[in-house]
């Protein structure tokens, strides 16, 4: 199992930013894999509506209200690595890669997102669309997560 501690290889160029986040899960890599690659499981955490063909070259469609993204599966390495590209219509594309690492008592799940292709000539509109489209779903998720926090 490879540990990732450098920037992802698939970046547009040295100047693109990237995001890397991780979480620790008390479950085996196989259990994590199921949640990452099964359509119904993905709808529990990635977005309310997900369509996925979890094979290399397969399509992915992610919808959260009016916010839609479409893309292609790039990497399928069972219980280890799952990656796809996605983009909002008319906007730049990014590469998303999940890595699962077995740990004593559970797994580390790491996700890296990096832009790979900039939008066709109207990045200002793209940024505005991102800002405008993001608040509704984000607020809803915040409300849900606050409810979880209160219950827990």
């Amino acid at each position, binding site marked *: 199992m490879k540990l990732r501690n450098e920037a992802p290889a698939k970046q547009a160029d040295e100047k693109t930013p990237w*995001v890397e*986040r*991780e979480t620790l*899960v008390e479950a085996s890599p196989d259990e994590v894999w199921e*949640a990452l690659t099964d359509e119904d*499981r993905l709808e529990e955490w990635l977005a309310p509506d997900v369509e996925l063909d979890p094979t290399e070259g397969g399509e992915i469609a992610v919808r959260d209200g009016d916010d839609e993204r479409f893309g292609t599966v790039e990497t399928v390495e069972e219980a280890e690595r799952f990656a796809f590209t996605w983009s909002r219509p008319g906007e730049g594309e990014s590469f998303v890669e999940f890595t699962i690492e077995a740990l004593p008592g559970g797994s580390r799940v790491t996700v890296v997102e990096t832009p790979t292709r900039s939008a066709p000539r109207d990045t200002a509109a793209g940024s505005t669309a991102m800002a405008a489209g*993001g608040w509704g779903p984000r607020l809803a998720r915040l409300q849900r*997560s606050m409810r979880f926090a209160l219950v827990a």
Partner: protein
Amino acid sequence: MTASGLADQLPITRQAVAKHLSALREADLVTSTRVGRETRYELRPQPLDEAAQWIQTVSSEWDDRLDSLRRSIEKRAGRSK
């Protein structure tokens, strides 16, 4: 601000400043304008602001999703035990 002006203020040579400015220009982070015999450089913070904005937004989104992922998995794992 000119390359000389910058070199006066920084503990590095004018050549080093020129190299840095060239890299920044290539990254679209400074603009250069010739005024007489001088070249004046000006900072363009917009690309950095955009990158910072993207990083903040996307980081926050993934934190939310990973949190939901963890809860979704652990809820199931707990039930099967």
